[in-house]
């Protein structure tokens, strides 16, 4: 006989070899906290969202003063209104996806929903990285075309720092350092994100791909 059929025949007959837990063993288990992947995804996602919202509050006063002096405050207010509306939309979507996750779904449906929840957060991060890059470029291009005004403004705001520097070297140092800091910052965020996302969902993704393969 085929070995699998043999195993099947013996399968039910050998249940007496399995561990037997009593009512009192099981009862305390239902009071414990879950440590499921969904819970970790929720924690990671909330942290990611909080970090991005937090970063918006961390912009130093001096940079706000400069933006104001450069006549950008109205543009920034408009950008912020749009930005936070989109934030709210993302948070709503994330919450709705998270709520939809249900352990009684079919295996495939469950995996799809978890991946969708993560994808929403991933798009949120992409959106943030994208707008950071765009803002960085837009503001610096604007600054570049108004560099005399910027130079004058910085000299007035930080008299001890900029008094000695002439306009030409100010321009190169200022813009190169803006670009370097920007690239480092975005690279750092992308790396952290890749690590967190990759480690948490590697197994789930592999299994999902495996299940999808059965459909073809």
């Amino acid at each position, binding site marked *: 006989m*085929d*070995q*699998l059929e*043999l*195993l*099947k025949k*013996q*399968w*039910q*007959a*050998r*249940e007496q*070899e*399995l*561990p*037997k*837990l*009593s*009512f009192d063993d*099981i*009862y305390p*288990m*239902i009071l*414990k*906290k*879950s*440590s*499921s*992947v*969904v819970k*970790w995804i929720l924690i990671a996602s909330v942290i990611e969202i909080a970090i991005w919202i937090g970063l918006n509050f961390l912009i130093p006063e001096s940079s706000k003063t400069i933006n104001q002096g450069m006549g950008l405050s109205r543009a920034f207010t408009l950008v912020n209104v749009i930005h936070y509306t989109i934030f709210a939309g993302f948070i709503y979507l994330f919450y709705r996806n998270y709520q939809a996750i*249900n*352990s*009684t*779904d*079919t*295996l*495939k*449906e*469950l*995996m799809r929903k*978890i991946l969708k929840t993560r994808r929403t957060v991933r798009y949120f991060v992409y959106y943030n990285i994208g707008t950071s890059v765009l803002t960085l470029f837009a503001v610096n291009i604007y600054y570049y075309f108004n560099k005399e005004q910027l130079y004058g403004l910085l000299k007035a705001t930080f008299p001890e720092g900029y008094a000695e520097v002439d306009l030409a070297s100010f321009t190169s140092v200022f813009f190169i350092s803006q670009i370097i800091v920007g690239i480092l910052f975005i690279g750092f965020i992308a790396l952290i994100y890749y690590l967190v996302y990759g480690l948490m969902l590697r*197994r*789930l993704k*592999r*299994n999902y791909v*495996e*299940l999808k393969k*059965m*459909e073809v």
Partner: protein
Amino acid sequence: MDQNLKHSFVKQLEEHQNVVHKICRLYTRNQDAHNDLFQEITIQLWKAYPKFRGDAKFSTWMYRVALNTAITLYRKSKKGVATQEFEGVSFKIASEKYDDTIEEQLKLMYAAVKDLNDIDKALVFLYLEDKSYREISETMGISEVNARVKMNRIKEKLRKILNP
């Protein structure tokens, strides 16, 4: 939460715990991990229990939540990785005179099933539990035809592993 609900849940789980133990054995490699997974499955079952209306059998409903937990929700703990593997499930029945080669074959088969990927293992598990292809397809979320085709492929694969 309602005391009666807790009581009836634990009673039913106690009665059907074999299903969960069998899944834990297939999906973990040592006793610590087995207990860990059993714990997580219990929590997930309990969380879903209020929505269980008795329109399916308790055990049928359990298969889905338990497999979902083992494959998708459970985060493998680092606890006790690299410790010894289960002693191999003993397939000996004490009272019977038993052919050792059959015993050996069963062990090899079980080991081969354990080595399958998470998804294939779930299919084989449900097959060993004598579930119909309709039930298998409803648990996994794939079509009945696909479940059947896949199962035949896995059988073929296992045959090749054991009879090279």
